[in-house]
């Protein structure tokens, strides 16, 4: 069997390999007395079901551009919902900021990739690049949002001091936003720098398995890495601007709820 091929009886080989790995993993876990013993088995079975369903959905979707767009919209909605919940946003303005951040970041990168002709706009390409970029934009959005709010929480007195001196919200949180952005961006930059040295990236391996030449797989991976960096940066820019735009009161509501009353009175005086 060359590569992964489920045609014919080859899937039996896959099942055998997975079963052996699952048994070995379960036995090793049992020797360490990791309970419940059936945990790994259930996890693998669940993964098998989920991957099967996903595979079948994608098999259908990649045949029709309209369904690819539909699926990307669904992914975007789920990404916005997940990221917003993870950050803890409350107001409509904050939800809009998170949504606009993810959509503009991923959307701009996809547009550049397609308009420059780096990728042909086939359903397969659109689904692959769209899925990767939306997912990464969501991750960066969540990490940035949480980092910023943690920083606001920890440095609340500094912000109050800035505002007391007459600064607006943007000026008061400028340092914190920069630090949060640097923290959030670090994993993505590191991943890009160490590509091929520490890990083999998924898109590269996937393209190779899909039959692309190593050169073509490398080209696709490069596009993905650049796209992820761009999507993440734009997403953070929108979030940093948008969350600060909402004002101190709005930021305080999600970062330091206990100081809500204080910030309100502070703003009234300001």
């Amino acid at each position: 069997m060359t590569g992964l091929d489920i045609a014919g009886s080859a899937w039996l080989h896959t099942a055998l390999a997975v079963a052996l790995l699952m048994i070995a993993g379960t036995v090793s876990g049992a020797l360490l007395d990791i309970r419940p013993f059936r945990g790994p088995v259930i996890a693998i079975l669940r993964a098998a079901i989920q991957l099967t369903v996903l595979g079948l959905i994608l098999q259908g979707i990649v045949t029709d551009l309209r369904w690819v767009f539909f699926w990307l919209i669904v992914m975007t909605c789920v990404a916005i919902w997940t990221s917003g919940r993870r950050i803890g946003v409350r107001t409509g303005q904050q939800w809009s900021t998170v949504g606009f951040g993810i959509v503009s970041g991923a959307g701009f990168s996809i547009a550049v990739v397609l308009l420059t002709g780096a990728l042909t706009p086939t359903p397969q390409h659109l689904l692959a690049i769209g899925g990767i970029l939306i997912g990464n934009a969501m991750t960066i959005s969540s990490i940035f949002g949480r980092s910023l709010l943690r920083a606001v929480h920890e440095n609340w007195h500094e912000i109050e001091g800035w505002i007391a001196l007459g600064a607006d919200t943007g000026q008061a949180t400028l340092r914190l936003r920069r630090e949060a952005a640097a923290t959030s961006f670090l994993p993505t930059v590191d991943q890009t720098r160490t590509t091929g040295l520490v890990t083999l990236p998924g898109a590269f391996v996937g393209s190779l398995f899909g039959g692309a030449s190593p050169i073509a797989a490398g080209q696709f991976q490069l596009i993905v890495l650049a796209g992820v960096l761009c999507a993440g940066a734009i997403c953070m820019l929108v979030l940093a601007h948008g969350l600060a735009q909402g004002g101190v009161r709005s930021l305080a509501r999600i970062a330091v709820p206990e100081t809500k009353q204080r910030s309100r009175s502070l703003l009234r005086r300001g």
Partner: protein
Amino acid sequence: MGHGTLLRPNGGWAYASLMTGIAALTFGTIEAGKPSYWTDEAATILSATRSWGSLWPMLLHVDAVHGVYYMLVHIWISLVGMGSPAMLRLSSGLAVGAAAAVTVLIARELGWTIPWAIAGGLALAGLPRMFLAAANVRSEALSVACSTLIVVLWLRAEHLGGRRRWLFHALALGIGIWIFAFTVLLLPVEILGRTLQRHDRPASSRSGWRNLFLSQGLGVLLGLPLLLLAYLERGQIAFLSSRGELTAHTLFTTPWFGAVPLSMLAWAVILWGIFRTARSKDIGERFQTLMLSSWLVVPGTVLVLFSILSTPMYTARYIALSSPAAALLLVSGIRTFRTTRTRVLLSVLLVVFLLPVLALERTAISVHSRADWSSVASFFQRQARPGDTVIYDIWVRPSWSPRNVSRLYPELVPNIRDIGLRRSWHCAPGLWDEPRTLPETVRRIGSAQRIWTVVVNEQKIHGRNQHSEARLAEVLRRRGYRISERRQFPLDTIVLWTRTSDGMTR
């Protein structure tokens, strides 16, 4: 598990179920007689109008999987006659009504309130697939009704226990398999459902598993003869291998929603509902979402996997048995929106997208079947004279043969001489009439003055690349006939040939 499981049966639910069933039946019968009969219905009607003595040998030869349904239609025809398509299709309308009524009871088992349960039942009747099934003399509607019955009995047995309930479940499963073999696809749904339920209720006993497996085993045992016959006659679905059935359209649109815009909106609502409730803290809400999702997804997934790994057997109509899950998840998705205004707005939007799809299914030549046989029959009624001769397309697959027009609309096609018929369907071992070859047919033309030819336009319906009209025209011209009239319908073309004065000398 939802609170509804603790409720005792009461008049409110029975009344809601009954009223929903009647509403679904009424809705399903709207213009049910208008679309032309088509190939699948022709198979049902030709089989069901056989004598009992002729039906048995046929079932051992072909279509055993539909045998019980053909017998039921045989009985139905003996009750209501072959009077009109609407009357014949009423049997399917009744099945859709029953399915909607039982769907209300499923919603009750899942802990829904009566208004939402009614909405679930009505949503099922409104699904384009079910609207189509309600006007289709085929086992689809009845198999959906059976699947709802199996699921409600399973939920009742899970909630309340008792041997009798598990026995009823087994019986329903056995009957369901005899109506439609792929009803066995509900087995993994039930197992998955029980796993999910058990996950939420760790105290669930081993006896629950034992009861489920015993009941499922008994049900499969009851349906085993049919399953064996279906396996022996599996060659019947070999045509699916040439169809390329696994597309976004056949996977997401055709099974339930009929058109892409409606399908996308409905899927968006369903996915939103699943996303919002699958991780809910409410155990009942989480269970119902996961159970309905598995009912929606598992049967299709199993068929698609078989199609990829082994024999192609996926076709959208086989997973119609998941329709109640689609309807309930759709309503569940609407429920997750908090404000009444949003719910109403979404419902109106769905109806706006739905109506054109439904309207297109109730035209004389429906989008789904593309059959024009009722139009052809009406044309014959107006134009043909008793004593005329007719030659039906010889090269077409028997299910698409225009000869079916004379079988399905005998009252509209006058007494004309069919010279291409070798053996009538009720004497043949297979489903269809057996045609003569072209030379045999031509030899029987004799001194006919007027000959009608009815041929199928689409070449892909023919077994091979044959131009039926051109071949028949060549033969008839050589024998001195010329075209007097030609009428083309979407699927068939009718030509009237009359003998020229010098034709006799050629």
